[in-house]
């Protein structure tokens, strides 16, 4: 994965009308700085601080730079999350995606806008094989891996899903920030659990659900709501529509009390899909 924070640095440097050679100074070759700005290679933090100092800027200035700066991965995660919350009606093209990941980013974007059951039909056999290779590659980790798994879990083969579960169980539950929740290990495990429930593997699904519950901390209210959504799917698979309806009502009542229309949109959309796919009920109409 390449470092595209370089774009933000380039913006700051150009705003201050400082040449590449002057910014690089004696610290590093201008070609290295150019590669960093182009997102082709990372800089160590010490070097980054030094070249920031050369243009009279601080690390914090990068964080408050233009919204288009920051890593493509961060902007991609934000766009996917904003789509779920109804803040975006389409998933925009993400600038700065490295060429080797462009296809998978476009594919995930296509899958993200359709319900899970429709996803397998949108993926070719070749794409499934490529996805499997990507998610199993040891070098592919963190937000990038989790986002791919979140949206492609329903098209991955059983063996790959099982191996992913083993791998993700040991990962940190850290969430970098609120809009990258779906890009966390917990988000990816949530999606893998949903697949088992969709496939009617109730025992496996319940086992994974218990695993998710065990990982919850007191304050993980978002994750606790997300677990309740999976319990709706489990209830439908057990033919227990009363419990499913009770849980659905509970999730939406909590969000109403908290006053978040965006989170209500996210959870209602997901509940509507589960209700339709597994319960045969169309609340959306």
């Amino acid at each position, binding site marked *: 994965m390449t470092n595209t924070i370089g774009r933000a640095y380039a913006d700051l440097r150009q705003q201050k009308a400082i040449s590449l050679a002057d910014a690089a100074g004696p610290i590093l070759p201008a070609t290295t700085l150019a590669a960093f700005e182009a997102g082709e290679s990372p800089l160590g933090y010490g070097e980054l601080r030094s070249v920031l100092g050369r243009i009279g800027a601080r690390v914090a200035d990068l964080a408050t730079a*233009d919204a288009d700066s920051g890593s493509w991965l961060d902007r991609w995660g934000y766009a996917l999350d904003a789509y779920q919350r109804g803040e975006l009606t389409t998933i925009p093209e993400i600038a700065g995606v490295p060429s080797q990941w462009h296809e998978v980013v476009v594919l995930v974007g296509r899958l993200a806008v359709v319900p899970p059951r429709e996803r397998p039909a949108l993926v070719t056999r070749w794409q499934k094989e490529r996805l499997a290779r990507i998610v199993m590659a040891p070098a592919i980790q963190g937000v990038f891996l989790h986002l791919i798994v979140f949206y492609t879990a329903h098209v991955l083969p059983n063996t790959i899903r099982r191996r992913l579960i083993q791998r993700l169980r040991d990962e940190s539950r850290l969430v970098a920030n609120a809009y990258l929740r779906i890009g966390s290990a917990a988000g990816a495990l949530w999606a893998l659990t949903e697949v088992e429930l969709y496939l009617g593997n109730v025992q496996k699904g319940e086992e994974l659900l218990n695993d998710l519950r065990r990982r919850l901390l007191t304050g993980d209210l978002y994750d606790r709501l997300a677990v309740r959504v999976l319990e709706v799917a489990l209830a439908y698979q057990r033919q227990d529509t009363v419990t499913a309806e009770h849980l659905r009502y509970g999730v939406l009542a909590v969000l109403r009390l908290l006053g978040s229309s965006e989170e209500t949109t996210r959870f209602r959309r997901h509940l509507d899909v589960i209700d339709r796919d597994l319960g045969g009920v169309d609340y959306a109409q």
Partner: protein
Amino acid sequence: MLSDGNGLLLQHWWRTSGGRYAGTLSPQTDAMTVLHQLEEIPLTLQSYTIHQAPSLRGDSGDLLRLIARARLGVGVAERERLALGGRFVYAATGDIRGLILATLLHPVTDSTLQASDRTALVTYLQAQPRWTGFEFVVLRLVLGRIVTLEDVYLLWPQLTQAPSVSPRQARMRVPLQAAALLSVLRHAIASGDLPRAQQTQDALDSIPAALLDVQHLFWRRVGTAALLVARGGDDTHPGEALFVNLMDTSEFLQSPGLATALNVVWQASRQIALRHK
């Protein structure tokens, strides 16, 4: 280069901590370890952290994670050593992260050093014109330990600064701002300081719900309920009713710890109301 007051205090502290380190590592060695670790810390820049995460293997990305890991994963002696290293880094380089590391890992009991730490942290936070995220986290962590509720008045402009125009950056920064404000609110309620609590609640209420995380929305509602109950009179009934709803929510979310924490705030609010009768 230990030229400032903190350097002298540090020397004093080093002398009083005596032979504890004799024959093992020196504080200078620890300082080098800390410096080396700090060099790897992107600090405020979350996107950089995210990018770097794969090459950093797991959670070794930033200062706060380093602190969390050190707090959980090592014994008291190791924490003290890291803290002393942090103090040396701060005294020698002025890098505030060294002091933050030290104060959070091993708060001192010496009142002169405590006062010096408090001044240094408040001065640092006050000097940052626009808080990008890290400062909110630092305030939350040191509030009540080193920095007092009174100090928060000095930091109010930064603490309540409006979010960035970029929705993405606002959603990155505002939850951290909300968490810091909620921490101030909790301290204000716990100390019965209703005007400060109300001022903080007003600041929280001015943040659009869309920018807040679910847990911050929950605790913001708790703040509303707590202030209604604490004010008493006609506000008591709606406050109590809101607490009941929030308690139902914690039950639905299957979080006994949340219910316990909620109950603490509920009882504290009732106590304030009784005192103000």
